[in-house]
């Protein structure tokens, strides 16, 4: 085995050919049979282990209401100085900063945050695995159980943005829906100049995407839409193309894009709190009123303080 032979000259070379340097013609068949064998073995192995390995993240919520435990028994098992919060990944970014500020003020209380999705949060709160759940949408009726409280901490507002050079300043809600569904493809159809609309959307599954789709009433985003992986790439795309339209969370708006009004209403603070502007989703906390008092009251109180509100207003609108 001389050192020159270490180099990579193809994955399967050495396995099939052993010490031969070059591939003899009659070995061609063996390559294919080798590969087929390899795949068959793998598929058999994986098929047999497949069902066992599906994730523990299965988040079905059982329909039967869990009977709320009495506070005393919970107190026994839990460390009383730790608040656990689970839930939505997008809300978690905000709550981590809030928790940091809270812990600076209350060093005796520790706040632990786990970002694992809204559905997991509901499950965790119902099973008493977490004190609070962070939820980034309104709860459905069947998700609420007696005794569960939901307080809205902040509003995440979605702004529809276009390139500053686009002369469009307002769109109707159904026009937005038509543009994103691919029914309107030229700006002239909505009163703009004659150029094709470049639609920019977000990746499937992201909270912003789902909120926008349901709030704007879009059934299926057009296939020719550009898909960006975050607010930053979205801004980059809208700022870079004169004919583009996109949507971002209000906290990320910069001066390289233009926010347009929907049905004549701009996403100002008043319009949002008056429910005039509807492209918004709540970041809320859910919890059981009947729970252990391990600093959770202080935390809720803190969330309504001026300090918390000033943190929230960096990117979101604090709820009243």
């Amino acid at each position: 085995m001389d050192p020159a032979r270490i180099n990579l000259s193809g994955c399967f070379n050495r396995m099939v050919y052993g010490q031969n340097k070059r591939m003899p013609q009659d070995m061609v068949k063996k390559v294919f049979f080798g590969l087929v064998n390899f795949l068959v073995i793998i598929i058999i192995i994986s098929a047999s282990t497949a069902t066992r390995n599906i994730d523990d993240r299965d988040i079905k919520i059982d329909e039967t209401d869990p009977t709320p435990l009495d506070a005393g028994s919970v107190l026994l098992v839990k460390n009383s100085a730790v608040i656990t919060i689970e839930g939505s990944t997008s809300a978690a970014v905000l709550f981590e900063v809030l928790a940091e500020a809270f812990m600076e003020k209350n060093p005796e209380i520790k706040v632990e945050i786990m970002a694992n999705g809204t559905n997991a949060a509901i499950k965790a709160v119902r099973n008493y695995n977490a004190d609070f759940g962070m939820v980034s949408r309104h709860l459905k009726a069947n998700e609420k159980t007696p005794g569960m409280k939901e307080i809205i901490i902040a509003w995440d507002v979605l702004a529809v943005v276009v390139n500053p050079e686009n002369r469009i300043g307002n769109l109707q809600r159904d026009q937005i829906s038509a543009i994103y569904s691919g029914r309107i493809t030229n700006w002239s159809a909505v009163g703009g100049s004659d150029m094709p609309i470049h639609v920019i959307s977000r990746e499937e599954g992201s909270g912003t995407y789902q909120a926008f789709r349901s709030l704007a009433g879009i059934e299926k985003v057009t296939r020719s839409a550009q898909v960006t992986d975050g607010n930053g790439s979205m801004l980059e795309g809208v700022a870079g193309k004169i004919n583009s339209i996109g949507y971002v969370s209000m906290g990320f708006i910069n001066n390289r894009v233009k926010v347009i009004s929907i049905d004549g209403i701009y996403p100002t603070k008043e319009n949002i709190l008056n429910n005039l502007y509807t492209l918004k989703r709540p970041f809320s906390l859910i919890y059981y009123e009947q729970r252990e008092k391990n600093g959770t009251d202080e935390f809720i109180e803190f969330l309504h303080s001026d300090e918390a509100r000033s943190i929230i207003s960096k990117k979101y609108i604090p709820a009243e």
Partner: protein
Amino acid sequence: MGITNRKWEKAVELIFLFSALISVFSLAAITVYLFARGFPAIREIGAINFIFGMEWNPTADNPSYGIFPMIYASAASTAGAVILSVPVGLSAAVLLAAVAPSCLANLIRPCVDLLSSIPSVVYGYFGLTVIVPLISEYLGGPGNSLLAVIVLLAVMILPTIIKISENSLRAVPVEIIRGSYALGATKTETIFKVMIPAAGTGILSSIILGIGRAVGETMAVILVCGNAVQIPRSVLDMVRPMTANIALEMSYADPFHESALFGTGIVLFIFIAAVNIIINILSGRITGRNMSVQPVLKNRTEG
């Protein structure tokens, strides 16, 4: 003493063997876990629907999981990158190995190293902020396009192609080069008719490595490709290669969606294995006729 010593020797040898076998275990674990997680989705969707399906809508009320446009995008972007990169890379390798004076070559070589030390995410960001707007302005279209992906990938695989090709060109025995000159061949005739054929295997393996890197590249691609799931009609259309699909949607995926993304990983895995095998067979045909010089690789670049 002698006996315990021998036992000790044997034990250490076993430890060494075990370390070496870790690579085998890892390969097995990677394959098994990838298939175990991706296979349930493929089975449920149906392999044909999954591989040849044209619609990708995992969170719709009536979800569809077809990845054919992504397979096509991966293949097209890789092919484009190789077509663009091989002439440039080979020229640079020839320049370094035979044409340029050695002092100049010694200046250029660190530049190639520099090119390979730029991480893929930086290439991606450069593409997003510089190349994409340029394409949009001068060639039209959204800018985020197959072309942007091809250009970035071509540059990213350049160092691999240059370094390995140069090494194998240098490994060509000086006797046959002198023989070529002695027969009256010009420099370029010697390069193209003697040196490159003689270094064939090495050049080919550099291209294989380049292809591997281009197919698997994620972070540079995801920022510039536009991510629309469609078969591009021109190089200015947006695409979504398989790697981008996985990275784009993993963080929010529910279990079944996630399984479909692992399924995309399986297809990517098989795709790379298939490309390697096909090229191996082709290379067997090509280099079988020519004399082949195995390159001596001091530093293997990342693949």
